[in-house]
């Protein structure tokens, strides 16, 4: 065991009394080993109704074609690509938490990385459905692969950013999946060793025969670190390439060099908002308040504040550069965004992404759970509007005023979008029933150093700078899972 103790100034990452290794296993596996409660069933019913709507709408699209959508000659991309970019962006937070925070040795990632990575995978699945959906003839999706064919061979268009997207998204999805699954192996083994009968057999196969021997653990940690190292540039490249879909075109409003960093910041922003939306509920329903603490919530809110501000600066820069470029088409595209017929979409985006997240400057709001939850939903809405604004308002008024139109979604558009949210939540709710939603082995690592009880012991032993202890106990006041009475006498 690591014998050194962590500085008392650092806030605890695990709260509660009598946290033992066994208690962590019991707490985390509770939802996996017991029958679901009412809240789960209500959520699951709603989510699967949404998923059913998705199946219906997407089947309708496949059967009758994309003509069923509200697209027209001028607006050729609308809710489909909006939804795609929205979901891919949401996916980014999972990899950021699991990879970037691992490289920076941010131990607070240990209790949220598992569910955030699961969220990444489900979000990318949702994004991929839009890609297949908007192809029109999805059964020819394999034409995006460079396969030899009877036409020459006529190869895929390597010069297209859409082709880069195929490579980026598929790499991103498969690497995230393998990263997530490798991390799951020790925890699946824990379930296996506690289960009986058929469950044991299933988890035994899934655990790949994990035993937890020293050599395996050591290799496991090497693998995690290297995967984190290569996933970090990967995740940055993915949204960069998504932004190329627009930036490499000659469309006013799309053809800007600021897009890659601006998209990446936006992706992290929306991803953390979605993590917050999910985890604030999950920690309550699953009773994980001791592992996903107020420190985690506040840290994520700080990241939302930072990335939201970056996005805000990007919006303003974009506007400035449009004016500064002196290109009248570019200038018109931006003035039209803010004051044209889609002014409401633009200002919804501005309000939700730039103005309201600034409330997180106030600590009271950062640590207020209902408030943080509502704000995270607002960010999700704002980020959807951002993509809608970029895509539809840039397209709907092209160079010939006679072809200027508005975009009106049909029920199929709405059905696919609402349905994809249902699909996402269905997958997420199933995930928390069958797999541990917190990386148990990684949380167990923190018990001896970063838990509240370990720090309490240090305080009780004395030898600490009283001002530091004071700072520490003051910091504990924000936690909703800490019993403050035991610190009164100190």
């Amino acid at each position, binding site marked *: *065991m*690591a014998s050194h103790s962590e500085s008392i100034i650092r806030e605890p990452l695990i709260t509660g009394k009598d946290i*033992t*290794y*066994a208690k962590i*296993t019991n707490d985390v596996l509770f939802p996996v080993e017991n029958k679901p409660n009412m809240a789960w069933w209500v959520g699951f019913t709603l989510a699967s109704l949404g998923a059913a709507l998705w199946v219906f709408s997407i089947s309708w699209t496949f059967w009758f074609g994309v003509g069923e959508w509200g697209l027209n000659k001028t607006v050729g991309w609308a809710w489909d690509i909006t939804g795609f970019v929205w979901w891919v962006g949401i996916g980014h937070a999972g990899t950021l938490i699991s990879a970037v925070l691992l490289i920076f040795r941010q131990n607070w990632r240990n209790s949220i990385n598992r569910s955030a990575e699961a969220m990444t995978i489900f979000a990318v699945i949702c994004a991929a459905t839009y890609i297949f959906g908007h192809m029109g003839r999805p059964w020819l999706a394999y034409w995006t692969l*460079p396969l030899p064919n009877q036409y020459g*061979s*006529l*190869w*895929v268009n*390597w*010069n297209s950013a859409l*082709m*880069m997207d195929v*490579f*980026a998204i598929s*790499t991103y999805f*498969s*690497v995230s999946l*393998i*990263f997530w699954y*490798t991390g799951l192996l*020790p925890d699946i*083994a*824990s379930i296996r*060793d506690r289960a009986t009968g058929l469950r*044991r057999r299933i988890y*035994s*196969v899934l*655990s*790949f*025969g*994990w*035993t*937890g*021997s*020293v*050599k*395996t*653990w*050591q*290799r*496991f*940690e*090497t*693998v995690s670190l*290297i*995967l984190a190292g*290569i*996933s970090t*540039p*990967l995740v940055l*490249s993915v949204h960069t*390439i998504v932004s*190329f879909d627009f930036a490499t075109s000659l469309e006013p409003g799309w053809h800007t060099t600021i897009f890659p960093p601006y998209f990446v910041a936006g992706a992290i922003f929306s991803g953390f908002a979605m993590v917050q939306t999910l985890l604030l509920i999950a920690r309550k329903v699953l009773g994980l308040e001791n592992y996903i603490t107020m420190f985690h919530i506040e840290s994520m809110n700080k990241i939302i504040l930072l990335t939201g501000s970056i996005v805000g600066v990007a919006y303003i820069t974009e506007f400035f550069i449009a004016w500064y470029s002196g290109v009248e088409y570019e200038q018109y595209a931006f003035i039209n965004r803010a004051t044209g017929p889609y002014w409401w979409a633009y200002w919804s985006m501005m309000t939700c992404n730039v103005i309201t997240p600034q409330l997180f400057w106030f600590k009271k709001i950062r640590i207020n759970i209902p408030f943080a939850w509502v704000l995270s939903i607002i960010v999700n809405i704002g980020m959807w509007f951002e993509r809608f604004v970029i895509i539809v308002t840039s397209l709907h008024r092209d160079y010939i005023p006679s072809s200027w139109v508005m975009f009106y979604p049909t029920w199929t558009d709405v059905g696919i979008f609402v349905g994809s949210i249902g699909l996402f939540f269905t997958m997420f709710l199933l995930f928390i029933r069958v797999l541990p939603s917190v990386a148990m*082995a*990684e949380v*167990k*690592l923190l018990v001896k150093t970063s838990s509240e009880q370990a720090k309490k012991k240090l305080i009780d032993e004395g030898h600490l700078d009283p001002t530091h202890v004071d700072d520490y106990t003051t910091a504990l006041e924000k936690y909703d899972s800490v019993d403050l009475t035991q610190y009164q006498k100190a």
Partner: protein
Amino acid sequence: MHGIENLQKNSIPIYDVYTPMPIHGIEAKLGVKESRLGYAAFCFGCLGGSVIFSILYYTLVHDWPMNVGGKPHFAMPNFVPFTFEWTILFAAFGMVFTFYAATHLFPGRAPRVMDLRATDDRFVIAIDAKGNVPHDDITRLLQEAGAVEVKHNERKYVSYE
């Protein structure tokens, strides 16, 4: 930790140690060599980059060169995203599958577990009892180091077969 030291002082060979989470420093004590998976990842990454670069070169320059506004066929900047993605893809999958192969992990493998609680909250030091110093000595050594229990398993593993 003390148990391992005690055993090693008395030159009792340790078969293996099983823990519910990684314990840093233990691998050095047991003489587990540093992992070479990083080299594997590097090699697989190079392979992936070369493969996709060759495909790009073959299709765009050799097999069907296209005249796009008189620009060069061998337009390297376009190759960058593809080469990068496949470098990562091959490095990740190559390394993880090497890891699975080297530590004998694959779906359906019967887990060779010494004690079912080793994935929950117990730390197991396994010692091959055959042809070893008197069992009582080992038991005593382990108990001195604070062992919760010392078990003598007839079979090697609590196997799932």
